[in-house]
């Protein structure tokens, strides 16, 4: 077999690998299910923090709010709430919603200090 034939074969192999990777990563990536909450898209996470803040405003129970946020895993509840607040500010959430999230962050920071 001619040597330039091998070159074509290797090029075809590399092209195939490239096509396979592009298809598997970009066009039709693996569908996941049974995921943990830390994989949620940032806007959903922020909305979850907002829900927790809305509930906190009435319940005034930082422990319960921390437990709700704990589903996101490794970060501290105040850090999770702060991430949500940061997203809310960057995406023009309503002022009242930002105020509620700020209140939650402040409360959780104080609560973390007590723990």
């Amino acid at each position, binding site marked *: 077999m001619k040597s330039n*034939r091998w070159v*074509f*074969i*290797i090029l*075809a*192999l*590399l*092209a*195939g*690998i*490239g*096509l*396979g*990777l*592009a*298809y*598997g*990563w970009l066009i039709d*990536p*693996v569908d*996941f*299910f*049974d*995921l*943990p*909450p830390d*994989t*949620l*898209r*940032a*806007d*959903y996470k922020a*909305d*979850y923090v*907002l*829900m*927790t803040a*809305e*509930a906190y*405003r*009435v*319940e005034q129970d930082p422990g319960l709010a921390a437990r*709700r946020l704990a*589903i996101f895993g490794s970060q501290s509840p105040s850090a999770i709430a702060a991430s949500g607040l940061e997203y809310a*500010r*960057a*995406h*023009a959430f309503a*002022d*009242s919603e*930002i*105020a*509620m999230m*700020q*209140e939650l*962050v*402040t409360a959780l920071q104080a609560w973390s200090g007590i723990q």
Partner: protein
Amino acid sequence: MKHIPWDILLALFAGLALGLAYSWVISPLRVTNADPTALRADFKEDFRSAIAAAYAATGDLPRAQVRLALLKDPDPMDALNAQSQRMRADSDSFQEADEVAALAVALENGSGDIPTAIIATEVVQQVEDFFTETVLPPPPDVPLVLTETPQTIETQPDVIAATARATQTPVPTLGAPFTLTGQDNVCDTNLPDGLLQVIVLNSNRRQIGGAKIIITWEGGEEQFFTGLKPELGNGYADYMMTPNVTYTIQLASGSDIAAGLTTPTCQAQSGETFFGGIKLTFQQP
């Protein structure tokens, strides 16, 4: 006719297979932008609890509907009712279970005129509009808010000013009070003595799970809930009465009061007497 380059085609397909194996099996993309539908079942329950808690705080039913639509449950009401029952059965927080049940009731009352199909299309459309990944340019009057962010204390006046919103509807509206539509003595030797059965229905005669029932007697009070025996119906609850004690019953969410309930004495065909039971039916008008 030109010769087909089989060896090159074979190399191309082999490469394709290798690429797919790597991208699908060996190193699939790490998920960082999942939808709530992809969450594990227990995390979906946490999500529903948070929605219910937020609804209990704000009374904003349309927003709760939009949020629930994110989970794409086939029937959000059933999902909420079932979760409420599971939470009670697992001795989770009764307050949270109540919030979940209250949202189911509100959804039932509030969505009576909204077919599921609309929830599944229009509301999902709202969701897509609401949750867009597009980074919107901040409106001209907003960016200055960012300058205040490092000063946590400075934001306190805003917090206090905004508390007025919480006074809008601190408690979800649960609909009209229930009326006592049926009170019957039950003489059935197959049932336990002194069995008090309570059935709670909405205005469409659909059974309501998670309704809190308060039973009182001289020197005592207890609470129990519908839906803990789903095999007997979502709106079914029962309680064992002690003979010769007079009970009073009402629903915690507001209802007629069934007073003077005592275990009836029944007579079997053989002439023997035994303690029967009582069956009460509460329904929303």
